[in-house]
Structures are given as C-alpha cells and as structure tokens.
C-alpha cells in the first residue's frame, strides 16, 4: 500500500536514508532501556521516535537529547525493528543546525572538536577548549572545569603547543566527507 504522510516533518525524516524506518517503531522501549545517557536526556530515544511520528518538529530538534547521544550504538544493535537510531540522531542534529535551532553547548563543542581535528590532525586540547569556551560563552562551564583543567595542565596533560600529525591536511578530506554526511 502506498504511504500517505500528511505531516511535513515526518515526511522529511522518512525521506532521509537514516529515517526511512521510523514508522516501523512499535514503542517497545528497548532503545531507552539500553541508553547509557538516558539520565541526561529529556525524552530518550523511544519518545523521540514517537514525537517524530507525530510531527513534533520543534520539540525534537530543540531537545538536548539529540546532542547527548554518544553513538554507542546500543539502541541500534538491540532495536527489534532494525531502526538505525544512532544514525538517525545524526540526521536530526544536522536538521537542527540547518534550521538554526541548535543552540546547545554540545553543538559548539562538536564544532570545536571538528575544527581542531581539521587543523591539527589530532586532538589539541588547549585550542579546542579555548575555541569551545569562546564560541559557547560558557562561563559557568569554564569555572566548573577550571580546577581539573589546572591540575591536568600542571601534570603536563594539556600541552601548550600543538602536537600535529605528520600531514595535518590529510585529515581534511575525511572531515569533509563527515560534514557532507
């Protein structure tokens, strides 16, 4: 039977390669029951899927949940409906950015991380944290993390100068593919 969907957000998700299975969800709760980040989330993956089915675009894309997913793939591996939930979260993050709704600190953190990798080829803590705190204006976070940061710096865990890989630019094509996806 041909599918007739009358709500635009659901249709948009269904048209994405990671979202074409969302109507298969029968709300068993395996994903939420598996999620290690569930304490941080407002809804959890099961409700997110239900909200997508109901077309609750704003609530889904503005929720912190999509940014707290740590891509452990537990939900995807255990889902009896074979819905690629982890990848779907990525799709939702992209949608949130495209609509300019991605206000959460996680976005800035992700961007800071990606830029550092692009520039240095590997993680360079000082630059990444600086970039994050500047773009996010996360003063509270800075104060909260300062003591541990100082400790790490004193123990030599946060280098002053970047320790680039041999060809930092060789990472750039990979980063571009990632951005496209």
């Amino acid at each position, binding site marked *: 039977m041909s599918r007739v969907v009358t709500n635009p957000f659901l249709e948009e998700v269904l048209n994405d390669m990671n979202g074409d299975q969302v109507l298969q969800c029968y709300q068993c709760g395996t994903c939420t*029951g598996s*999620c290690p980040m569930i304490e941080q989330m407002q809804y959890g993956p099961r409700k997110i899927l239900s909200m997508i089915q109901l077309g609750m675009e704003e609530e889904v894309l503005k929720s912190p949940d999509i940014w707290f997913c740590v891509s452990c793939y537990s939900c995807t591996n255990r889902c009896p409906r074979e819905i690629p939930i982890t990848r779907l979260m990525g799709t939702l993050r992209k949608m949130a950015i495209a609509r300019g709704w991605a206000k959460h600190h996680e976005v800035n953190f992700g961007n800071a991380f990606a830029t550092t990798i692009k520039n240095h080829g590997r993680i360079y803590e000082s630059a990444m944290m600086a970039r994050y705190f500047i773009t996010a204006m996360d003063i509270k976070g800075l104060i909260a993390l300062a003591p541990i940061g100082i400790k790490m710096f004193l123990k030599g865990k946060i280098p002053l100068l970047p320790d680039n890989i041999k060809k930092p630019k060789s990472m750039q094509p990979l980063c571009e593919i990632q951005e496209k996806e």
Partner: protein
Amino acid sequence: MEKQNDQQKNLRIGVYICHCGSNIASVVTPSEVVEYAQTLPGVVVAKEHHYMCSDPGQSLIINDIKELGLDRVVVGACSVAMHEPTFQACLAEAGLNPFMFQMANIREHASWVHSHEKEAATEKAKDIVASSVAKVRHVLPLERFKVPVTKRALIIGGGIAGITAALDLADMEIDTYLVEKSPTIGGKMSQLDKTFPTMDCSICIEAPKMVDVSKNKNIHLITYAEVKEVNGYIGNFQVKVERKPRFVLPDLCTGCGLCEEVCPVSVPNEFEEGLGPRKAIYVPMAQAVPSVYTIDRDACIECYKCVEACGDLQAINFAEEPEEINLDVGTIIVATGYDTWDPSPIEEYGFNRFENVTTMMEIERLHCAGGPTLGDFVRPSDSKLPKSLGLIQCVGSRDKRYNEYCSGFCCMYTIKNAMILKWLYPEIDITIFRIDIRAPGKTYEEFYERARDAGIHFVQGRPGEIREDPITKNLIVRADNLSLGKPMEYEFEMVGLATAAVASEGAIELGRTLTVSNDTHGWFIESHPKLKPIDTATEGIYLAGSAQGPKDIPQSVGQGSAAAGRAARVLSHDQWEIDPIVAYVHEERCLNASGGKCDKCLQACPYGAVICKPGSGEASFIVSAKCQGCGTCVAECPNNAITQHHFTDGQILAQVHALLDEKPEEKVLAYTCRWCSGMGADNAGVSHFEYPANTRNILVMCAGRVDSDFVMESFRMGAGSVLVSGCHPQDCHYIDGRNHAEDRMQKLHTQLEKMGISPDRFRLESVSATEGAKWATIMKEMSETVKNLGPEKIKIENEKARPQLTKKLKRMVDAPGVSDAISADELIIFKGEEQLKEKKLSSEKDIVKEVEK
C-alpha cells in the same frame, strides 16, 4: 484462405449474446454484435437472449446444438467465474464436450465499465466475441482423467495435531501410518505442565490419546523414523521411511527399566530441556508411547551392563541396523510442529552467560510435577526458590533481526506459567515485561484479567539489557516503563524468556522432499491463506498444526481434524479426477531428446511435476497428475516443446490476431491471469469503475504462461500498448509463476526498448482480485499513454521494430499448432520477409563483388 481452412474443418460454431436484462443491452447493442458474429468464420448461428443463464436461454443452446449440429459454443455474457460452469454443463447435457466452449465477457469488461462510450463499448464487445470465436475454433475436447486412489494415509509428526489427525482417520476406517522422528509421540504438548486457559494437566489429557494411537488397529505407528523420499502424486504417493535403530527390540522390551538402573552413563535429558539427567539407555518420559527403551549410541560406552540386566528377555540388540520402510499412500499430512528458539543471539539478555536467565520451557519443566525437580520450583544457580521472577516477552519474535512474525501463543504461556507459580508459591513476586498482550482466543482475555487479579505485575516495555550481580547471582533488568515514561531498573532472582516458536529442524529439507514450499522462516505454505488453509499447493498433501505457523493446542487439534477431513475427502474415492488443463511435452522438440542440456522446465515448475534429465537423451516428461496447469514451463521452454491443453500457443495467438485485427495502434492489450488480475478486472466491472474502451483482455491461467513471443507478436501486429498482469508476489495461485513472468518480462522490456518501443507502452503489473480500482487506473494510464503518443508515432515505432520482431518470432511459427492458428497470409509474411532478406543479402554481396572487381 482462412475461410477455406474452416470449411475444410467444417466447424459449426454457435454464438449467443446475452442482454443480462439491461445490464449489457443498455450500453452494448446486442443486435449489432449478433450481426457481426454471423460474419465470423465458422459461425453457423448467432442469437441474442434476455438472460442466457435462464432456463429458456440454456434450452436455446441445447436445442441448437442438437438441431443444428453445433460443435462449439461461444456465449457473450458475464465473467468466467460467474457462468462458465453453467454453460459447460449445458454443453455436456447436449452431448458436447464441455471444453468446446468459450465465454466472452461483455458485461464486466464492456457494458459495466464503458457506459459513457456506448459505440466504443459495442465495438469492444464485437472484438471480445471475435477473440472468443477465434479461440474456440482451435479448442480440443478434453477429458478429466482419473487416477486410482490408494486408501492409506501418512501423517508426518506425532504431536497433538498428528495424533488427532491419525485418530480421526482411523475412526473413518482408513489405514494410517504415523511417522514420528523422536522415540515417542506426544510432541511439545507432552512437555507442558498445564494448558491455558483451563489449567488442565497437559500430559493427563494428552496421554490417553497417545495410548489410543498405539491401541488402534487402523494406525501403524512408526517412531524414531524419518521420511527420506517421496514420489508420486495425489492418490499414489510412494514414501521411503528410514527407521533409526533403537538397539532395543520393541516387541520384546517390556519397559521394565532394569537396564536403565544399571546404565552408568548420564547425559542431559532433552525432554527436560537439559535440566535433568537421563541414562544412555532411556525412555524420554514416563508416559512414552511406545513405552520402549532406546540406546543413545553417541553416549553409550558399550559396557553391556544393560544386556546383562535384560537377561532372558534378550530385548537388546547392538547389531541393529537402520531399516528402510516403503509405504504406498494416497494422501500425506504434514504435522511436524515447531521448535523453541535459542535466545543466545540476543546477547544483552545474557542467556547462557547468566545462570538464572532461563527460557519459558525450562520454567515449564521446573514447576512440572513430572519434571527434573519433581515440581520444586528452584533457580539454577543455588537450587533455591526465587522470591522474585521477571518474565520477558517477544524474545526473538516480532523482531526483524531474528523472527519477524508474532509467535502467537507466548503471551498466553507466559501468563500461564506466572499463574501456576503464583498459585504454587504465592510469595513469589512476578513481573511480566510486555510490548502488547495478545489474547484473542476464547476466554483468553478473561485469563489475562485473572492474572492481573492474582497480583502479577505487567510492565509495558521491552527490557534493553540484563546485568548479573556476580555475588547474589540476581539479575538487574533495565527497562523503559512506558506507563511512567521513564527507564527503570528492576532486580529479580530469576528471569524467564518467552522465546519465539520457529519451524522445526529439517522442515525445509522435508519441504523439498515433498515438493511443498516453505516460507522464508521455514513454515510450510498453505495453498490459499483464506480458502485453503489446510491444503498445500501440491494436491494430496495437507498441513496440520504448527508446521504451518505457530499455533496453540486448540488450533492444532482443530487443524489436525481438518486435515484428516481433507485427506478423507480424497481417500473416500476409488478414483480421483484431475483437471485436464495440464502441460505436456512434444518429445521430438525437447532439446534433451536430441542430447541437449536444458532444465528450464524443471526450474520453472513449482510442483516438481517435471521429470527432466538434461543430457540424458531422454525428453522431459510432465506428470499430469502433479501438474497444476499454470503453464509457466510452456512459456519458459526455449524450443516451444511444451503445450498447455486449452491454452495452446495457437489458441492464444488466434486471440491476439482477432483482437488486433483493426486499428491495433489505438488498443491496449492486457494479458491477465485467471485468479488475481482476471478477477481484479471483473471486480472493476462489478464496481462500475469506468475506464476507456480501447482496452482488450486475454485470459490465461497464470501470468507465468505469457510467453515473451505473445507480447512481441502483439507489437508486431501493431498493438498500441501491452500489459502483463498477475498476482502480487505473495498471492500467486501457482506459488511463483508470476515471479517467472516478472523475470521474463523485465528482460523483454529492455529488449523492446532497444527495438524502439517506448518503455511506457509495455507494462508488468500486479493486481489482486479486490483491486478493481487499481485495474481501472492502470487501464486509464495505459490508454492515456497510447493517446498521448498518437497512432502515427506508435505506427512508426512498430514499423521500426517489426523486422527484428519478425526475425525473432520465426521460432514461434513452427511451434506445434501455431501455423494452424495464424492465417496463411501471416505465414507468408514470416517466410516472405525471410526471402526478401536473403535476396537483399545476396544482392549486397553481388555489389561487394562488383566493387572488388
């Protein structure tokens, strides 16, 4: 030329046009159709009547047959499904072979769907009648042939379904063989403690039936045996059964058990789900039928203590060999049941890793009074009564990764186990994790309510994972509680998994042996999901119980009786009539006869009716009694060596020629199967779904019968567009006939496109018997395509493709019966173009030679 042929044959065809009150006459003008029919070759009389199906209408035909000496009849009225049998009976009454008849459907296919185009509808009615007359000129008298019936039945599988079927057949005085794979009959039901929703003791109600089987003079019980080979057809199956050696002689063994006492070897007992031990010499359970010991030679250390213990009885024979038993039976009932799924692949539930995670069947044995603990319910890690128990549903069922289907009875057996435990040990706290509860059986919902009343907790939410506390061996179940909308952790002393039911081991292999299809999960497929749920596509083989799909006990028993009824329907006859619309091989044309290697017919046949030995020098042979008459092999045969009675190449091509005689470029020609698409087109008529009148139908038994050559010939004749329409893949009346058609037509589509035929002009569709609206839509779309392209463009395309088509179709012309059906003029075209081409080639060569000079 055509007329001369007919005069030689001296055909006497009668055409009768029905008004159907005003149903036909208000749109189609019957007198015009009658007038037209009279001009058709071979027609000696054409008449009209208000109601052809009425007594006077039928008498009209009968009288004409007798008085005018008619030898063939066409009735232009309603659908094949509606009145073909009526008029065939008419012919039979007048002493004519009922197959000398054709129905021309001018109601569902014309008057009911073209009410706004009365003139075009009349033209279409004329074409339909012409097509039927063209076919009826080539039909031959056919006789339903009869095969003898061996009045014996075979039942494979001795679970409750097989037992029921055997007892029912035996009551009808039918000799019945019951073959069981394991040492005892009883099946899964014998392993259960109690049955839902009545809480009867399972073995207490089954054991008397098992004993009845062993006592019944009409039942021959063959246990510890497997069906190895099946040949033959309905009424005449030859079955090879291999009885495995028990190493204990059933006639001498008294079941005293002295041997078991002395046997030093202990292995896990399968009957107890491995929870208890059994000896190497064993009976699976106390109520086993036959109550005879069996030696498990894989476990036996050959100390021969059992031989000593048996003493003078001398019932033990270590030299016993497998025995081959040959049976001749008339029908076969497959009742092979199901297996429980091993939940190890679901790693997050830790089955096999955590001692206290068990399956529901293990729990069943643990609280059964006849079980390994004699009914003391304990958990495996410390053999203590668990104070809390978590039961998880849908483990491996409704799960796309493992088994997509719902196993049906798990909800109820989980609730049943919870109820038994709550009843025996009120102090156990029981929680059932469910996605849904499915309780649609009689009094099942009430049973579920009783469970709630009894204090069993139901949590909606499928657990994500189970962890084990390494010290207490308790289990922490993490699940999203849907009612509260938050994930929670629950601690249980023991967990039970309601595992899926899967097709029994060896089901697919048995399917191959029987030429009965299994679905992707291994369940046997019924002939029709609604109207023939007991039959298989192979006549004479029936299904009972869970072999067909998960079933609970009442359903299995019901189906066991039903299968016995279906089998007895055949076995109560001395002879069984078989439909004559079957395929047969023209031996001299078969490639294998001339040493070739071809097995296309074998590949095409879904019923194993073809005996084909590529490279043997022997022509393929079709066992008529096994052939179901789809005609797929006929279309697949690369050398046109197979013909289908009543749907010969000649007959179908005669129809094509009749339908495309005038203005072919304006017409849409549809080939439909008899069942889904044909009925779908009729449904469009019954529902009065209007579509354009430039459409024409040709009915075949299955889309699989539609030869690529028919489609090519349609285009060569100048057709505007062509449709091949069959059933949806899962509904094919002939298992996978339409899939063969799909493969064939997709290839043809590319070929035709290369020849310059617009891709929209040839379509393959699936229309079910209820999709009249879809049929009308397709007809509209295709008609639209023809109109948009315009006759000129279509003519140009056809002209361009014609030489290539003619070249390809030359193979068709020398197929049996085709030259009779095609007019002599047409034959000249095929041959003439060949000569022209030869001339052209030779002249080209001459030019080349001249240039060289």
